[in-house]
Structure formats: C-alpha cells, structure tokens
C-alpha cells in the first residue's frame, strides 16, 4: 500500500520529469512536444522552473532523511516509482502537447523519423501518419 511519502516521492519525480522533458525538447527544437510551442526560451524557463521547483518543494516541505526500512523508500521501490512517474510524465507530455499544438501540426506531410518528427508535428499526428503509411504498404 503506497504511503503519503510514496505519493510525494512520485509527485516529486513526475514534476521533475515534466520539467526535464520540456528542457530537452526545447533544446532540440521539438516544438510539437512543448507546452509553449511558440517560444523556445519560455519552454526552457518553464522546464527549469519545474525542475527547480520540485526539488525545493520536496526538500523544504518536510524532513526527507527517512530510514529506507521505515517510512522512506528502499532502492527497489524508488526504481519502481521513478519508472511509473517518469513514464506518466512522458505520456502526459506527449498527449497534452498533441492536443495543444494540433492546429499547428496539421500541415505535416511526413518524412521525419522517430523523435525528429516532433520538430514539425505532434506525437499523435506523427504516430497517425506512420500508421497510415504502414497500412498503405500492406
């Protein structure tokens, strides 16, 4: 049964992962995966604030030197919850930015592979385009 601390740890990682993804996507010019696709500097600022903010909140809000055999999390639990929170942050980023940037992404005609497609379109548009290409081939 997840404890209050587990929830706080997962939230800490989730917000940190959201920020890290915004920093990386903005650095790569992948506008299709940005919450503020019109401005790369604003996205960098948002990403930086999310990362900094989550660390400040987590460590300033309560004492965090908790025994991993007691109220804290041991290495295995940390790994498990980091994976869950990181994957959730990635999924949420790709889905929400697909909705936010859909109008901008409509002109995409394909031709970009993998993450590179996010420079010209959103994740869902890129996946839909790839699926339709596969369907045409088969």
């Amino acid at each position, binding site marked *: 049964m997840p404890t209050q601390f587990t929830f706080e740890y997962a939230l800490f990682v989730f917000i940190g992962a959201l920020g890290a993804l915004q920093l990386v*996507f903005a650095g*790569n010019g992948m506008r299709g995966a940005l919450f503020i696709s019109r401005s790369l500097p604003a996205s960098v600022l948002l990403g930086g604030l999310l990362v900094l903010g989550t660390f400040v909140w*987590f460590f300033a809000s309560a004492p965090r030197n908790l025994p991993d055999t007691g109220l804290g999390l041991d290495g295995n639990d940390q790994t498990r919850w*980091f994976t869950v929170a990181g994957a959730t942050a990635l999924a949420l980023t790709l889905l929400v930015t697909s909705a936010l940037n859909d109008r901008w992404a409509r002109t995409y005609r394909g031709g970009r592979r*993998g*993450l590179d497609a996010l420079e010209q379109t959103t994740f869902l548009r890129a996946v839909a385009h790839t699926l339709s290409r596969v369907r045409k081939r088969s």
Partner: protein
Amino acid sequence: MDSDIVQWLNSGVGRFGWWDALMRAVVSDYLVPVLGSLVLFAFWFWGKGPGRVRNQMVTMAGVGGIGLTNLATGYVNHIYFRARPFVDLDLNVLFYQPTDSSFPSNAPSLAFAVATAIFLAHRRLGTAMYGLAFLYGFARVYSGVHYPSDALAGAAMGIAATVVAYSLIRIFHPLVRLFLRLVRVAHLA
C-alpha cells in the same frame, strides 16, 4: 586510517550550520539519485541524428550499470558484514542510522554508474556528474554513515558496472540497433 579519516571529517559537524544543512540534503537518499536519474532519463531524448543514438546507448548502459552495481553491492553486503562507523566510533551522525552492512556503499555506486554513462557520451556533463557523485560519497563519510573505503569501493563498482553494461551493448550492437529502430517507429527514440 579509515576510522581516522571519518573522525577527522566528522569533527567538522556543527561548526558551520550552512555546510551541515548542505550535507544533510546531499546525503539524502533522494537528491542525487533522483537528479542523476532525471539526467539519464532526459539523455534518451537529447541530441540529433547519430548523437542521439549514442545518447540512447549510454542511457541503456546507465540503466544496466545501475542494475548490475545494485546486484553486486547487494551481494557483497550479504556475504561480508562491516558495521557502520557510528557503531564503533563516537560520531555526530547527520543521517538516519542504517543497520545494513557498510561495505561497499550502494549510494555512491549508483551515482558513479550514472556519471560514467553520461561521461561516455558527454565529457563536460559527465565530469559535472562525477563531481556530484564524489560529493555524494563525501557526504556519506562526513555524515558518519560510511568509511572512505566503503565509498571508494562503491564508486569503483559503479564505474565498472557501467563499463561492463556498455561493453555488452557494444557486443550486442545489432540487437540494440534493431530495438532502437522499433522504438523509433513509435516516435519514442
């Protein structure tokens, strides 16, 4: 000598409040591990073209290194018990008092595993991560929960684990390439 170093370093506890507060934060189970893991997570998506492929390979090496060093340190902890320094010495402990074996230190081994992975692809960021990993190991000794040799052994195991994981990735390069191509179809690599 191990004991002398711990006692000498730990004698600084209480002299500067700001330094102790910093050490309390750094020594935590959550600051350096989460920061390192977030850097590794972001590294998967970072870069363009062949540079990104390389970053993704070192991300896999980092994850593999974490797994291997976790197994190795866990195994050594299991077969060889060394009491924590605060058990045998008169120390001001800045951390909770763990009851498992002191040797080797698992915490710096994870930080050094991540730093080594990053260093393989990005020298400057990797050097910064090594600095952070060193600070993490230092904080563990300063706080009285590890001997220097515990931290050094953990660091060596973390570095070795990632080098082994990276070597395996290079040996199985065609399979790794195939995996990356499949993930690229889903626009996640």
